[in-house]
């Protein structure tokens, strides 16, 4: 299968963005001046990672891409020695990330890697629970370290204690060092992120693969249902909202909690009441760590957490108070979910004819169930908790840069690469120490204005789903499970490029996320802050959802997302609520408008628009 040549795509630069390459690390570029690399890039299959990056990357946000470029690849290729695959290579065109798994081509080398892999991966699989417990300790310590990082202001005169304690270091030095520490912690956190993830996904992918051999028509959602955790911490933030709703009713402050959608007003009113203060104490307990939940995927600086946007959890609490008052149950039907999971597993197992297949099913199911909680839980620790704290620490750096005139707005910091920030901080501290003006005050603001324009043009560009040359076989487990690279998806991607007439699209295809069919009115919510507008029974159409969207699911009749697979948040939650979901449609939020009548078929993955 042939897709457009990456160098041809890159050659057609969007007018006005020429020179955009400097916004990203140089190794991310497709190049034409190096014949060997040029040939490799042409012969390789690159697909757009729309799963993680529905929009172009801001220069700073590239940090997580670099972090996983390193972490995923090293665990595959240097630590666990996955026999047929090395790492995943990365490129950027017009702000969009393209990735490609790198195979081991020499059969002899693959053979040599086998015993290493068996020994190393085998060790993790065998000692999974014990190692995972260690992981939690490491991860929590990393987050504590991050929280403790101070981004110092640069005073005109250093504090007296610098003298009396004979510290011998300045705040200027601390600023440079702590910025480095901040970045290093981020990279470290992503090292941990992948310690278990490849192996976890491998167990899932090959369980899925095995079950699909026995039952070629089994929807992936059913396989996921067999292994999904019921008590995963991803549900905890939502549970905290429910607890707070009950507590508000118990204390009789529910009317105060719901009197406004504006948190500052609600908080002020609650502070005046003794019972209100008691409720606020419960809230504070819930906020750490559970409100460090991102309102997006956590991958972008603009994904703010509940702690940053208290109106979001407030709206959730209000929804639950309303539900309780109507007499509806807000408890998760965990017993029912568990019973259904067990029934489905037992029925499929009962249809397996051969004894050795049943034995293999049990083995793989057991393995997948052991590893899968990690696959779900790591998201809270890394993408939500760590990232939410991290983005705000970087904002503190932005405050210093603004104070020294290098950027005009705190949020401008995201338009700089992290190494450019480091250079700018050197500029600032040396100028501060010396008592002169940083050179960057004249160079960065102009550059940032230009980069903002470039970003805007990037957003309007349609990234082709795949470029280069498709291979015959893909072995890298992530490529298969996360990005769903299959014959069918390649064909679908090729078709997506043709959607140039959104006003006439009548049907959208996605993944069957949660079964059932429903018809209803669409409500397009581009961000979680819009879920307050949802009416009972409407169909939520969103770019993607995350745990912070949970209260919305108590209201809606079905969910449609742009991005995500059968293991995405929207799919999992809809299955629990027993409502249809079609996920990963690619561009539902671009084509569907609020008020349109939709028919959502979560069993086949089709969304029909009545026009």
């Amino acid at each position, binding site marked *: 299968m042939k897709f457009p040549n990456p160098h041809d795509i890159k050659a057609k630069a969007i007018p006005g963005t020429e020179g955009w390459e400097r916004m990203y690390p140089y190794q991310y570029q497709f190049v034409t001046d190096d014949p060997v690399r040029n040939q490799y890039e042409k012969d390789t299959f690159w697909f757009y990672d729309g799963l993680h990056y529905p929009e172009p990357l801001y220069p700073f946000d590239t940090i997580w891409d670099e972090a996983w470029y390193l972490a995923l690849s090293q665990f595959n290729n240097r630590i666990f020695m996955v026999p047929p695959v090395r790492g995943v290579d990365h490129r950027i065109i017009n702000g969009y990330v393209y990735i490609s798994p790198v195979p081991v081509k020499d059969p002899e080398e693959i053979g040599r890697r086998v015993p290493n892999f068996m020994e190393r991966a085998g060790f993790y699989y065998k000692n999974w629970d014990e190692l995972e417990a260690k992981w939690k300790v490491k991860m929590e310590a990393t987050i504590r370290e991050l929280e403790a990082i101070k981004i110092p202001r640069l005073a005109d005169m250093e504090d007296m204690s610098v003298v009396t304690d004979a510290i011998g270091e300045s705040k200027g030095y601390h600023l440079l060092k702590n910025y480095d520490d901040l970045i290093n912690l981020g990279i470290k956190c992503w090292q941990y992120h992948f310690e278990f993830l490849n192996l976890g996904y*491998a167990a899932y992918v*090959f369980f899925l*693969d*095995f079950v699909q051999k*026995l039952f070629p028509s089994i929807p992936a959602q059913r396989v996921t249902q067999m292994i999904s955790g019921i008590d995963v911490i991803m549900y905890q933030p939502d549970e905290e909202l429910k607890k707070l709703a009950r507590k508000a009713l118990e204390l009789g402050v529910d009317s105060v909690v719901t009197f406004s959608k504006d948190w500052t007003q609600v908080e002020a009113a609650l502070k005046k009441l003794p019972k209100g203060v008691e409720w606020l104490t419960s809230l504070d307990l819930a906020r750490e760590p559970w409100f460090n939940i991102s309102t997006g995927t956590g991958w972008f600086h603009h994904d703010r957490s509940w702690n940053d946007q208290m109106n979001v959890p407030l709206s959730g609490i209000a929804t639950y108070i309303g539900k309780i008052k109507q007499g509806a149950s807000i408890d998760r039907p965990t017993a029912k979910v568990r019973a259904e999971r067990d029934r489905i597993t037992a029925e499929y197992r009962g249809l397996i004819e051969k004894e*050795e*297949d049943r034995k293999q099913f049990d083995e793989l199911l057991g393995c997948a169930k052991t590893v899968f909680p990690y696959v779900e839980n790591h998201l809270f620790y890394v993408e939500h908790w760590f990232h939410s704290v991290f983005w705000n620490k970087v904002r503190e750096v932005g405050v210093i840069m603004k104070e020294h005139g290098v950027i005009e707005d705190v949020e401008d910091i995201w338009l700089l690469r992290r190494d450019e920030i480091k250079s700018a901080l050197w500029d600032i501290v040396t100028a501060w120490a010396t008592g002169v003006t940083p050179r960057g005050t004249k160079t960065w603001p102009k550059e940032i204005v230009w980069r903002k324009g470039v970003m805007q043009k990037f957003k309007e560009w349609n990234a082709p789903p795949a470029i280069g040359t498709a291979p015959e076989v893909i*072995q890298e487990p992530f490529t298969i499970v996360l990005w769903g690279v299959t014959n069918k998806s390649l064909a679908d991607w090729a078709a997506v490029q043709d959607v140039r007439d959104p006003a006439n699209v009548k049907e959208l295809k996605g993944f069957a996320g949660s*079964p059932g*069919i429903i018809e209803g009115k669409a409500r397009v919510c581009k961000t979680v802050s819009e879920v307050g507008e949802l009416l009972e029974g409407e169909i939520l159409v969103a770019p993607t959802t995350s745990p912070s969207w949970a209260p919305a699911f108590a209201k809606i009749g079905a969910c449609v997302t742009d991005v995500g697979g059968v293991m995405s948040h929207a799919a999992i939650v809809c299955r629990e609520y027993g409502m249809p979901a079609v996920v990963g449609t690619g561009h539902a939020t671009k084509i569907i408008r609020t008020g349109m009548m939709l028919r959502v078929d979560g069993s086949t993955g089709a969304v029909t628009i009545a026009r």
Partner: protein
Amino acid sequence: MAAAAAIIGNAPPAGESQMGPPVVCWLEECRKDSVPLVGGKCSSLGELIGAGVRVPPGFALTTEGYRRFLADAGGAAEIQSLLRGVDARDMGALETASASIRQAIEALPFSMELEDMIAECYRKLSVRCCMPAVPVAVRSSATAEDLPGASFAGQQDTFLWIRGVDDVLDRVRRCISSLFSARAIAYRANKGFDHDQVAICVGVQKMANSFTAGVMFTIHPANGDRSVIVIDSNFGFGESVVSGEVTPDHFVVNKITLDIIDRTISRKLVCYTVDPKTQKSQAVEVPFERQEVQSLIDDEITELAWLGKQIEKHYGCPMDIEWALDKDLPAGGNLFILQARPETVWSRKIQPGSAHAGGSAMDYILSSMLAGKKVG
């Protein structure tokens, strides 16, 4: 399934013969082990009813009734004499003998007692269906038909849309005579079956006045997947689907969760309905506006699949089922199973498992990783 009992009603035992096996009996009185008495088809329908499956009501003239018919009118001796000296390898002679036998049988009168019993069953059937002279299908149900390796399937006649006692009696005779088609005689001669030992039973069953009908497999006929139920359906009688005359609507239902995981709505040009004048099945064009309309609604698909699952559970193997949605009856009680037999293609094959199953999870992961996933 409560509705099924209400429609079928609690019929009184039909065969009133004081001693020996009954000459007629209701389908619901038949069971798996009734083959010698009512033949394969009727015993299988009775078995379905016993399993709680809704089947169009009906009755059977048993093999005892068949024997009584031939004995009362002296038919047995006549047949023997007509068969004497016929060379089973001489198709011409066989055809001649067959024609004379069939003619003779079709001219034989029923005894008064037998005629009364059949007529009474037909009357009661009409009452149960709340229709005067209910249209029925009259078809033979051979005792040897379902014996392994001795397939007579399709060799006996089937008469559809028969109304009134006289016509029913006439078609019953013709079904009986079909036991003596040239091919059937030759087959028995080749296999060494004695013509005296072979008996036939005739089933008389309410015609399902299908709004929609078709077939259902409780296994994927294309890939042998046992976790799905596949339904093909078209408007009218199932003939259009069974014969392959139209591309039917196609549904794949998850057997475990009963949700529809794949659907193809085809353009259906032709369907079979009954001609109200001649009371015969006829091919008609599907009205243009209905050609691309889904021929079964989702709730019906789910109910049908659920039924398929129960039937499979009862028989313990994947099944091949014919069904119909009756337009004479209200929704919720109008889905009927016309026939169910074990699926034979995939059931004989080995489930498409994995070549390297049976080891540890780790072994499986490694070997699958090495094999990779084909694309392109």
